[in-house]
């Protein structure tokens, strides 16, 4: 079953590339000590050396090997991506499911709250929370999750609204099965493909937001991240382009991985959605 799903994902246009990118980025970060030439805090080299055989991505203003810092920084950037998306799924999924299943005044209130958060741009919400609560690593994850959950809630709500009208759910309801069974065994599994796509997209959004936060110098200063590397690089843009170009590429690749994976899953479950449109000939 699982193997079959993987095979189908690899058969889509981009799904396979997405999975390979995500795996590669994760492995490189998790096994950073094996691929890095020095530790993330190791300032032994001369500062701001351009890329060379010894330092393929050059060294930064403090004399650290940019490649090594990049690998270690990937850990926190990916953690934020995964954890913020998971949290957003838990908050948004719960609210969306409650509103979509029970409807009525509860749904109206929950959807209003969702709209409220949706009115403000994510980065503004994150900046607002960080300015109120401070910027320790896990607060930052929570702030990002707080900013991206409304999309998830909207989506799950929509899925629940459509699915709970379908025959198999009505049949289960008529058979007298419990609410819990209806939500978790009937509706949720059928909403899952759509939800997985959104969680992957949320993870990429979270990485981009973290990058922005780090770039503004507002992320946890004790944890190296790609955004924080870009913040350091901005100051030396004229002298050391490699301090900015490589972390940006890393972000771009990770975000691309999540998006390609999402595209692949969409295509796998709904081939029409991403198939090439019919062309007007002549």
């Amino acid at each position: 079953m699982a193997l079959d799903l993987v095979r189908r994902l690899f058969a889509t246009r981009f799904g396979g590339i997405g999975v390979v990118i995500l795996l590669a980025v994760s492995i490189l970060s998790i096994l950073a000590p094996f691929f890095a030439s020095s530790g993330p805090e190791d300032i032994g080299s001369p500062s701001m050396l351009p890329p060379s055989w010894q330092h393929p991505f050059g060294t930064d203003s403090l004399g650290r090997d940019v490649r090594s810092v990049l690998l270690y920084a990937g850990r926190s950037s990916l953690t934020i991506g995964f954890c913020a998306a998971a949290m957003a799924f838990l908050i948004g999924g719960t609210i969306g499911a409650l509103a979509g299943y029970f409807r009525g005044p509860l749904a109206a209130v929950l959807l209003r709250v969702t709209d409220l958060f949706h009115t403000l741009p994510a980065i503004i919400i994150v900046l607002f929370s960080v300015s109120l609560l401070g910027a320790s690593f896990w607060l930052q994850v929570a702030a990002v999750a707080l900013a991206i959950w409304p999309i998830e809630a909207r989506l799950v709500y929509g899925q629940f609204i459509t699915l709970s009208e379908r025959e198999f759910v009505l049949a289960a309801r008529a058979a007298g099965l419990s609410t819990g069974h209806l939500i978790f065994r009937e509706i949720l599994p059928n909403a899952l493909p759509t939800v997985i796509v959104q969680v992957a997209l949320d993870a990429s959004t979270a990485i981009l937001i973290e990058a922005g936060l780090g770039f503004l110098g507002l992320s946890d200063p004790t944890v190296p991240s790609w955004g924080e590397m870009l913040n350091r690089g901005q100051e030396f843009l004229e002298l050391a382009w490699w301090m900015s170009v490589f972390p940006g590429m890393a972000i771009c690749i990770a975000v691309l991985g999540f998006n390609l994976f999402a595209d692949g899953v969409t295509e796998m479950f709904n081939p029409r959605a991403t198939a090439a449109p019919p062309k007007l000939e002549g």
Partner: protein
Amino acid sequence: MVRHIAGHLAQALLLLIVVVVAIFCLLQLIPGDPVQAMVGDMPVPPALRAALEQRFRLNEPFLDRLFGYLSNVAHGDLGYSMNYRRPVFDILAERFPRTLLLAGIGYAFGILIGIAIGIHSAVTPHRGVDRAWSSLMLIGYAMPTFWVGQLLVLTFSIQLGWLPTQGMGPMISRAEGIDWLIERATYLVLPVATYTILETTRVARFMRASVAETLEQGYIVTARQKGLTRHEVIMGHVVRNSVLPVITVMGYSFGTAMGGAVLLETVFSYPGMGSLMVEAVRARDTQVIVGVVIVVACSVVVMNIIVDLLYAWLDPRIRVAAAAR
């Protein structure tokens, strides 16, 4: 039609009030001394403390304070920034038009170019063209906006030396008239270009999907069968019907564009609202942060109303239904 508009306005106003109330409640949750939070990281003399406590009714019950705050906001009193030593409203009035200029131009260019690319991508019979555009747009989407800005600065300012790296104008300028305008425009080129790239990638993705969906409709087949040329079908039927959903989506995401300003303005040291927000967060200047959040919320709501009206005007079904009521 009037009722349609009035309904939207009422909803928008309600949403704004809720945003302000929510922000007010959030501010109550911050641990610590509210007076200190208002002043920022500076010592508070007792006279100032007393004045602030009286002005913001800090010693009164919660609801009284809430209504006092709402009435202040409604009168345009957003507090006083200790960091800038100016009323928050004045700072925002100075910064907001600059951001609007930057975001507005980038947004307009982005929508036009994105729509063109989306159509070209979806209707070109050659599949390779579609793939090339889709891949390019996806990569553009994956790049952090501010990093795109940095790359442009690296290429066009630092390597080629064609354009200024940052700011809104030179420190000292003797240019007048047209020269002054051109001088200012050179400073806008890179930020606007970055904005345009960001918006283009988003619009093109939506537009391609929308055109693809339109092409599957029965009336397209009918139009072809009654002998219209490919060009006539695309301009007369496809574009018209595909643009509507894209305009809605883009209108609703204007807030995201305003959010993008936060990072972009920092890259280019452009003195707009985004960089104001960042400066305020760094200085813990809560009054200014709240002011920016309120202004952004207002502009998003206003943009939503504009889109609703535009949509009603463009889509005869809504126009007729509203008129019939």
